[in-house]
């Protein structure tokens, strides 16, 4: 792919010394500080929503941006984990941590099962297989009685984190979600920057070469898929906890399309891109509601403009600007 995209921009930024380890430390430090202060300035439920979707998009980006695999069925993992967590908390009264963990574990297993079959194909066929499996998961969600069908699984209890932090308090819940996000984001960050991540990128650039260098390409792809599915599940479980319900929207293919939009908009293949994209999309959904039926047209136009003119995404374009800025 000779496309100017986020991946090349972030690599160039490294090479040219725009991103240095020191600057990165400062940047992430500022980010954490902002994350801690923000709920006192912005509406916390909105922020929690953003964090969940940002984790979801970042997990997706691990696959699209760093491995070059476009999954069109990632909502299956988000939704399944949400349903599992919701059901366990509600019906079995499990502690919060166990519920979230169980949801993530089920999504990981599901990712392993679907991934093992899907990675045997690539390109548009890979996307279609993942879509096919996701549609089957959607079918199950409609049919199985515990999901509540289109009414959704409602009234999920929030309980207490670590047995004493009451999560029905929006601030306590926010910091819990923030911690989960930081954990998930950290896993993704470590994966990208590990030797494993470098192999993934070489697969994305040139799969035959990676193969001829002796890498077990299929195995690498599968592991990336499973990590991505598991973290998408973590996002889904957390989202179920925040909103206290899970509905069919979370497993619908529109959600799978939405995560592509977030990633593309923010800049695929960049560390921060998906989160920025998630922020933008969630904000559009929540704050454009006053425009009535123009919302679809606006989102569509953003999509078209992004594809035609800003393929690097917001973060990618920003890096590009910085790189070409005469210091």
């Amino acid at each position, binding site marked *: 792919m000779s496309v100017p995209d986020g991946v090349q921009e972030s690599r160039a930024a490294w090479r040219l010394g725009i991103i240095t380890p020191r600057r990165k430390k400062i940047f992430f430090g500022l980010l954490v500080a902002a994350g801690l202060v923000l709920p006192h300035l912005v509406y916390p*439920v909105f922020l929690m929503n953003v964090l969940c979707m940002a984790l979801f998009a970042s997990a997706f980006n691990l696959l699209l941006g760093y491995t070059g695999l476009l999954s069109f069925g990632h909502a299956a993992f988000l939704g399944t984990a949400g349903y599992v967590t919701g059901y366990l908390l509600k019906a079995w009264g499990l502690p919060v941590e166990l519920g979230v963990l169980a949801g993530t574990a089920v999504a990981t297993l599901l990712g392993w099962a679907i991934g093992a079959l899907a990675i045997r194909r690539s390109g548009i066929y890979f996307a279609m297989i993942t879509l096919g499996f996701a549609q089957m998961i959607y079918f199950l969600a409609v049919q199985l009685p515990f999901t509540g069908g289109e009414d959704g699984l409602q009234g999920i209890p929030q309980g207490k984190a670590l047995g004493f932090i009451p999560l029905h308090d929006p601030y306590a819940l926010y910091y819990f979600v923030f911690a989960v996000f930081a954990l998930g984001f950290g896993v993704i960050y470590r994966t990208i920057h590990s030797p494993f991540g470098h192999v993934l990128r070489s697969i994305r650039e040139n799969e035959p070469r990676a193969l001829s260098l002796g890498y077990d390409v299929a195995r690498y792809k599968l592991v990336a898929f499973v990590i991505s599915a598991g973290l998408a599940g973590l996002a889904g479980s957390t989202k179920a906890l925040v909103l*206290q319900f899970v509905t069919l929207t979370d497993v619908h293919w529109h959600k799978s399309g939405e995560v592509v939009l977030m990633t593309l908009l923010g800049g695929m293949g960049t560390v921060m891109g998906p989160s920025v994209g998630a922020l933008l999309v969630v904000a559009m959904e929540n704050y454009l509601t006053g425009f009535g039926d123009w919302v679809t047209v606006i989102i569509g136009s953003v999509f078209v403009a992004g594809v035609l003119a800003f393929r690097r995404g917001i973060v990618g374009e920003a890096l590009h600007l910085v790189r070409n800025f005469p210091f």
Partner: protein
Amino acid sequence: MKRVASSLMMAALLSLPAAGRAAGKVSDGVVKIGVLTDMTGFYSDLSGPGSVLAVKMAVHDFGGKVLGKPIEVIAADHQNKADIASTIARKWFDEDKVDAIMDLPNSGTAFAVMPVAAEKKKLTILSTAATTSITGDKCTAYNIHYTYNNWMLANGTGREVVKSGGDTWFFITADYVFGKSLEEDTANVVKAAGGKVLGYARHPQSSADFSSYLLQAQASGAKVIGMANAGGDTINTIKQAKEFGITPKQTLAGLLVFISDIHSLGLETAKGMYLTTSFYWDYDDQTRAWSKKFQNHPDNAKKAMPTMTQAGLYSATMHYLQAIKAVGTDQAEPVIAKMKATPVNDFFARHGVIGPDGLHRHDAFLVQVKSPAESKYPWDYYKIIKKIPAAEAFPSVAAQKCPLVK
């Protein structure tokens, strides 16, 4: 310095309740109504912008002020997604000082918003959501279900159609909770009235082609085909029933059909169908006067007549504002108590009483769709077959089993 600050604080604290009293008992100095609805999707023609208009008309006709404070209306599109609905609701209650949320098409969003409102001690007044359990096992103390529910639709149509000879039924049911509960409710009514259910076909929501289900219905030989689906699904079922030569021989019974659906289908296709509605614009002088005002309102771009949920919202808003005026505060508990204590009698509701479970019980109508020859003027669509008195139209308080009612 510290002492000054603390004494300032004390003064501020002491003056707070007094300030509150002086300003009247309206929280934040404004009564704010949020209309949370579906502006673009499945339900947008039968609620959507028309719902917002109905609420705004009510506020305007009320005089725009209550207890000397302005009344504001805001609206948002929940896109039929529960997560968006609940996020908007929380934001409205926490930041925008909304006192009541109205409409809420589709029970998924209703169930997502009702607990939020109960937690914040604010009102929800539902008009378009239909599930019976809204005031049944999932009822809350802060909710009123105003216009209709599944039980009303199932009973009105089911019982009366059986009585008039349609005693064998086949159901075409949307395969989701709403469709299945509508089918079950109606099937029970049909059996209780002495009819027989010969079978059912369940289809995924938003199917385009219904011919295979219609063929099954045809093969069953049932006199009546009950459509336990909604919106575009119902419209396509009716259209294709005519195409396959089913309708003159077998009768269709619409379990959730709005006048907007009939309008888009045309009478030629829809004629002869039975349905239950809680409002028809051409019932008497009162309904005609209000409906024409609604139709000719400059904000009603499509010049459509009101559906029952839109008319219900106007009535509900009036009832809500009058209760605020009567109790002298916009606090949810006294207002809701007053609303339940006051009977409703206006252009929309006859013999209306809001029960302790929050369900508004009022008269309903069984109607039949006219043929093009019978229709004399635009929107002249229904023949009223029977007026169903409130006590028969809705389930009793005991039957609802709302846990709040002991």
